[in-house]
């Protein structure tokens, strides 16, 4: 599949954001992965061409970062299960095993029908919300096996699935485009703040505690 003129234009738009073009490489690889479902040889060559690098230099960067797929197409939805200590031991391990069994794939594999990629992922900076699962990298907080099976049921039925802190999932490739820094129009739309993020504020209000009043100084 040829890379469209629009994507080339978006690559140049990313390059314009930095004093030096090469700084756009990491986001550009996300964008090309979004376009093609993986980082292809063609994608690497386009980066090299636009940034005046050798394809070997571009490949050296692409192979360093774990989010790029260089060998095979990713599934329609990416399911990431945090298995670091605070999530894994508190439930993530069991969630991963249940998903692995249900989807008949192991870590990093894509289901035969191409619907799901399943991955053991590292800490998602949401330990307060453990066990954390991501669908297309959106937060699904405080998950358990039942809730996760329900999510998979809905995704398989093509129903809407909304993140606990974030928008309705839109597929892995759409998420990769957001991560690349191309506006998806959702920045102010989702409900990103939940009760756990307000735990301290609510406690402070209940107990009548506040920061010192600046007027007193």
């Amino acid at each position, binding site marked *: 599949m040829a890379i469209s003129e629009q994507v080339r234009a978006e690559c140049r738009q990313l390059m314009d954001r*930095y004093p030096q073009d090469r700084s756009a490489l*990491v986001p550009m690889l996300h964008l090309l992965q979004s376009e093609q479902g993986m980082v292809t040889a063609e994608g690497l060559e386009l980066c090299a061409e636009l940034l005046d690098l050798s394809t070997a230099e571009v490949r050296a960067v692409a192979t360093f970062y774990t989010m790029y797929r260089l060998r095979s197409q990713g599934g329609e939805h990416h399911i990431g299960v945090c298995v670091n200590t605070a999530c894994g031991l508190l439930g993530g391990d069991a969630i991963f095993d249940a998903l692995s069994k249900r989807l008949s794939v192991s870590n990093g594999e894509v289901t035969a029908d191409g619907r799901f990629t399943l991955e053991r992922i590292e800490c998602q900076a949401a330990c307060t919300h453990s066990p954390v699962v991501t669908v297309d990298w959106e937060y699904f907080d405080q998950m358990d096996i039942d809730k996760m099976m329900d999510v998979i049921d809905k995704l398989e039925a093509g129903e809407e699935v909304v993140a606990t802190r974030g928008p309705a999932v839109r597929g892995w490739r759409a998420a990769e485009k957001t991560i690349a820094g191309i506006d998806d129009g959702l920045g102010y739309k989702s409900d990103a703040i939940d009760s756990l*993020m307000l735990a301290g504020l609510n406690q*402070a209000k209940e107990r009548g*505690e506040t920061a010192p009043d600046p007027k007193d100084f």
Partner: protein
Amino acid sequence: MALTPVITAHWDEPDCFTVDGYKKVGGYRAIKKALKMDPDDVINIIKDSGLRGRGGAGFPTGMKWSFVPQNDGHPHYLTVNGDESEPGACKDIPIMMANPQALIEGIIITCWAIRAEHAFVYIRGEVPEPIRRMHAAVADAEAHGFLGENILGSGMNLKLTVTSGAGAYICGEETALLDSLEGRRGQPRLKPPFPAVAGLYSAPTVINNVETITSVPYIIENGVSWYRSMGTDKSPGFKVWAVSGHVNRPGIYEAPLGITMGELLDYAGGIRDGHELKFWLPGGSSVPLLLQDHLDTPMTYEDIAAAGSMLGTGTPMLFDDTTSVVKAITRWLEFYKHESCGKCTPCREGTAWITGSLERFQEGVGRSEDIEGLVELSNHILGRSFCALGDAAATPYEPALKAFRSEFEAARHQPVDEAFPPAATMIIPPETANLAGAAT
């Protein structure tokens, strides 16, 4: 000690993340003050405030800013580190989602102080929600004239670029972050030169954590004595604590430095019912574990260090009596092994050797020499690696062996999942026993 919501004070307002919502609660007043001041005076205020970096090292922020050479003919850059990937750390992502405008106001003030005209927020790649929110917040601030040319008639120009990584913990290390931001493999650089002298594109660069920069507008607006009325002399101010693990009310709590873990635990509803605290880490997986005895230690950089650990990111993880310390540490080492960038031998090889040793304990086939071997191996890494990732991987064993040696001894013959059934450690245990037994 009382909670002191400052950064988090308005997170229950539906529009707290927009320019309009932020202005309603006093936002964008501090830049009006700052842009009328001499940049050096802004640096001095931050120096006097005693604000210390919230990314883990606790380096004095104002001092870091003052290292940037002035009138040197080079462009200067500010890079905000939003790579938050340390296991246990989960405060910067919430800040970027709920209070991005305070971060942007802090960026403007910092750039005025260090004379930078281009700033970056580098966010880890795996988190589209804060990425899209930061992009929207920057566009909002641009539309209101807080970014761009001649900001508020001050003559200051500032471009702010939100950029993302692609899954590499090491890019939270400041020089690795710079390499990643330059479009390279994210591997740490040898220091010196320090980034303040030769950072992004070899130009003077300040790198600060999200929470650090978000604290700046509140200090400028409310003053040094207000700021220093919270916390202690050497560790002043408010702090966003993210409390996780086996507690009844995990979440974000904002309180001064110097609050104790015991007090924070009270706000967080205590350890889950029917269980007792076994061990806790004050600030991420890279700091030594502490015990019940340390619940009364003030959470300052100095006091936590004196207790044998480090404050780190100030995001305590607490584990109860169902948790295998061997398994917890093994999981962290598997992480460091996975995330080692491979540049230096002690870290690349050492993390693999230690992980192998720990995995033998986990499976119940630990060797007697493995116990002392952990300490010996870690001594081959500690202080010998390029960056702090290696040191972090070398950190856990001495305190763990001191408090829980018998668990390591037992794990020479018995798999940890037998001694500590995984289902008991889970918050919501699976109903079927076969799933519980299949962990790891």
